[in-house]
């Protein structure tokens, strides 16, 4: 709720003595989360929710990895009888769906939900209750998918669920419905996170952090969030159309050619989301890479503006590529050429970023090859390979040969593991001390990196050749005569090495949590504001909202750098600033803990899960949702004493002042 409005413009800077101890005690009290289970359920602290997201998404990553291991065991030799087609189809579908919807997007947006408020110097995300709601919705979607798999009702038509195979005629039962509703759950969560990130980054930045001073990681998250907002509705629409096609008594026939529907419509809607999805996963990775490279090179980013413009242009061009997933369908050749052009063009911004990163490293100080940096270097090498095979796939005639083969399996893992998981692991090593106050073990970290890098290339490099030699994707077995046995065995051995790398990571996390070297506030000597507070940060993030004079606030902090005073400490209040200049605008009261996000998520769950079985779930769910929203928006009454306090602590003038700490 908006308490005060002030005229935009130059804030005046005053020198004042701040009562640090009183402010800290009050902030502690007003931002504290209730202890116990109820507190856990009602918290709206962005850090608790983001950590939950990260841990949950990582658990899904492990589940998805186990499924991948099952596939590699099955394919290690021809005609293996380890998994039958029914089990294999469920396993590969749930593997892909998990990695895309339950792991990659959520863990990247979760990093944003944790670090965007810290990096822009504010106390919480813009809509804390909505944020909590997003997590519960996401969790429900994930549990739904795995309950399906464990009850032999796992979806089995691929993460792309092409119709008519996934339609009512060829996929009876509830398997595909579970998939479709899982999509709806996770995409709502993604949209929620996107809204949080955009508003937080645009309206809640520390004074002085004008658009051209936003940290590169925050830029990456903003571009990602905009892509989510434009891409996710397409898949939610498609999955809902599929659900209504399949729902007995509704049977809409959107995708049924026999009743005037169109099977290709699904592919357009799916890939209009599906291709940007790749960039939604990859762009946060580039944000991580830019952040880590600047820290380790100990110099300013080479080509900050070029890097930001590359991100933005990737975000735009990413929406013009979807037909390159459909080159094998009967589309006109000239039309396909435009998509070839766009697919090849997107290599340009990626190239710009790689050149800027190499230049930053080149011109930087001596590099200490710590684990986070190793992952970044592994990323550059691996991602360049994935990018080059991407150019091949973008070429319409060559794609006719390699499309839907193991070549694509290799390519997509080079792009997603190389482009997102390597940076992610680098980020986990880099930010672990911020979360726990302790550094992760370097020796285990290096072991982790080398096992993952070698295991990854052993697993996926041979798949390029398998694709060229005729092995299609999504096959549960192959004949011994095909000659694909040796390379598949090699890939399976690589998968074992990769698994060992992930196990080394897990050991490192559990060991370092207790026994890691104490980190202090800023162990890597980094430049962004999350390192300007304690590790782990207090619930209110910063005692005083910092101010920013350039792109590298922590490197240039001086004893007389002003901080923001005048924000209320007795309620949860944050500073809203102007989108472009980040000049202070007004104060904004953030909500306290609340149970209503959980209630609303439960109502949503009843609706979406119920609609798998009956259309009556929609009116019933709407009524429940209405009740939950009434509770959500019910105004809090403020005690009179608090009201009096409000007037006492208000400074004069525009309600805000920048004060020099003395």
């Amino acid at each position, binding site marked *: 709720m908006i308490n005060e409005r002030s005229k935009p413009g130059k804030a005046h800077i005053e020198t004042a003595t701040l009562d640090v101890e009183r402010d800290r005690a009050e902030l502690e009290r007003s931002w504290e989360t209730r202890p116990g289970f109820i507190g856990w359920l009602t918290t709206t602290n962005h850090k608790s929710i983001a950590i939950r997201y990260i841990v949950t998404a990582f658990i899904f990553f492990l589940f998805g990895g186990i499924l991948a291991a099952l596939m590699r065991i099955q394919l290690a030799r021809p005609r293996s009888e380890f998994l039958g087609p029914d089990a294999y189809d469920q396993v590969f579908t749930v593997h892909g769906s998990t990695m895309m919807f339950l792991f990659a997007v959520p863990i990247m947006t979760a990093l944003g939900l944790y670090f965007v408020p810290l990096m822009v110097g504010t106390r919480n995300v813009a809509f804390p209750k909505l944020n909590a709601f997003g997590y519960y919705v996401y969790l429900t979607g994930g549990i739904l998918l795995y309950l399906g798999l464990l009850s032999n009702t796992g979806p089995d038509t691929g993460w792309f669920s092409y119709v008519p195979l996934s339609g009512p005629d060829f996929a009876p039962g509830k398997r595909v419905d579970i998939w479709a509703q899982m999509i709806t759950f996770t995409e709502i969560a993604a949209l929620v996170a996107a809204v949080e990130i955009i508003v937080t980054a645009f309206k809640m930045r520390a004074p002085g952090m004008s658009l051209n001073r936003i940290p590169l990681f925050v830029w990456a998250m903003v571009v990602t969030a905009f892509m989510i907002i434009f891409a996710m509705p397409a898949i939610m629409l498609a999955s809902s159309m599929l659900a209504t096609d399949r729902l007995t008594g509704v049977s809409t026939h959107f995708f049924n050619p026999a009743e005037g529907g169109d099977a290709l419509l699904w592919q357009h809607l799916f890939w209009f989301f599906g291709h940007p999805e790749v960039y939604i996963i990859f762009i946060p990775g580039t944000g991580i890479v830019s952040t880590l490279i600047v820290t380790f090179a100990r110099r300013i980013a080479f080509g900050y503006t070029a890097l930001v413009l590359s991100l933005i242009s990737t975000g735009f061009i990413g929406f013009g590529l979807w037909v390159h997933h459909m080159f094998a369908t009967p589309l006109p050749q000239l039309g396909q050429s435009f998509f070839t052009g766009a697919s090849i063009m997107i290599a340009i911004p990626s190239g710009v970023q790689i050149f800027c990163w190499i230049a930053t490293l080149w011109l930087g100080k001596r590099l200490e090859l710590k684990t986070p940096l190793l992952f970044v270097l592994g990323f550059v090498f691996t991602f360049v390979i994935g990018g080059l095979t991407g150019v091949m796939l973008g070429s319409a005639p060559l794609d006719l040969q390699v499309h839907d083969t193991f070549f694509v399996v290799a390519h997509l893992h080079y792009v997603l593991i190389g482009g997102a998981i390597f940076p992610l692991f680098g980020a986990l090593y880099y930010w672990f001390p911020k979360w726990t106050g302790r550094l992760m073990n370097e020796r285990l970290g290096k072991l982790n990196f080398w096992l993952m890098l070698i295991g990854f290339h052993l697993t996926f490099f041979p798949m390029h050749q398998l694709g060229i030699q*005729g092995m299609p994707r999504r096959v549960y077995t192959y004949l011994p005569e095909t000659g694909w046995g040796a390379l598949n065995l090699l890939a399976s051995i690589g998968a074992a090495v990769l698994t060992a790398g992930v196990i080394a990571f897990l050991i490192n996390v559990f060991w370092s949590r207790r026994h890691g070297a104490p980190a202090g506030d800023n162990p890597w000597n980094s430049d962004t504001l999350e390192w300007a507070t304690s590790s782990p940060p207090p619930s209110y993030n910063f005692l005083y909202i910092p101010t920013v004079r350039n792109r590298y606030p922590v490197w240039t902090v001086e004893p007389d750098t002003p901080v923001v005073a005048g924000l209320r400490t007795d309620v949860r209040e944050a500073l809203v600033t102007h989108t472009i200049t980040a000049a202070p605008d007004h104060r904004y009261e953030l909500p306290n803990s609340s149970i209503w996000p959980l209630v609303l998520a439960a109502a949503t769950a009843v609706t979406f899960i119920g609609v798998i079985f009956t259309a009556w779930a929609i009116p019933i769910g709407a009524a429940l949702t209405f009740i939950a929203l009434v509770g959500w928006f019910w105004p809090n009454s403020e005690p009179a004493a608090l009201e009096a306090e409000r007037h006492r602590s208000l400074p004069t003038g525009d309600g805000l002042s920048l004060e020099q700490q003395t």
Partner: protein
Amino acid sequence: MFFQDLSGAHSSVEPATPQAGRIANLWWVMFYVSVAVLALVTAALIYAVFRRRSAREQTAPVDLSPNTNRERKATRAAAVALAVTIAILFVLLGLSFTTGRAVSFLSNESPLEIKAVGHRWWWEFQYVDPVPSRGFITANELRLPQGRQIVLTLTSNDVIHSFWAPNLMGKKDLIPGQESRLIFRPEKQGVFRGQCAEFCGFQHAQMGFLVLVESDGDFSDWYNHESQQAVQPSNDSEKRGRQVFLSSTCVMCHTIGGTPANSNIGPPLTHLASRTSIAAATLTNSRENLAKWVTDSQKIKPGNRMPPNVLGPENLDDLLNYLTSLK
């Protein structure tokens, strides 16, 4: 037999048609360009990391105002690298466009037209003849004359499949309610293997087919033979076998030309014995394999649409005698 080693029989880089040859050339251009780009980027990265730094470069904790001269040089180098990248991409785009045109246009001569229909999980090939009665349908084995332009029209009766014989041409989807087209001219004789490339359910993995490219003479002989109805049983056992076929569930899905069996849920068996493989190019066509397939195909290809058949040993024997006689 042909099932010894197929490793070169489904390879994108061992083309048997000019069309696949054009694509293979494009592949090799892109491959070598990619190797060069990767080598340059990796070299630059390694140098950037391990470059020897002067003592002065190492002392300051962070570099906030870098040496403008070096920055300018680096900017120039990055701009050159970007220009080279763009140039390479435009060349690849041009090559891609010309290759795309070359592989999707017909030449003037009259083509051999074949219609391919995808089924779960087998391939129906309809040879369209100007004289309708000479047209015929076969399954899972495509025979083609060497040196003649082929136009394959592709569609599906159930879900989406994709026709892919890498040595002949790239893949095209078979989509219910739509028709797509593949054009190529086989110029090498031999046996090539193809496989469904779009996930289509349980037996997607083993929805294979063979392409036999033959001389014109061999092809015409085969063609004339296929145009005929099935041969009549020549002895009592085969006659009983036919009776077993016609009086059991077989008849509900299969066609044998010249008999009342006339359904196309499963592959036509009119000239079954002249095919080299059964079960969508999964098993060699032998009496032993046929027996296993007829009695319990679910064990070989779980989830396929052929039910297990309980036949007495004598009935089975007669049936196999009949089926193996269908040359």
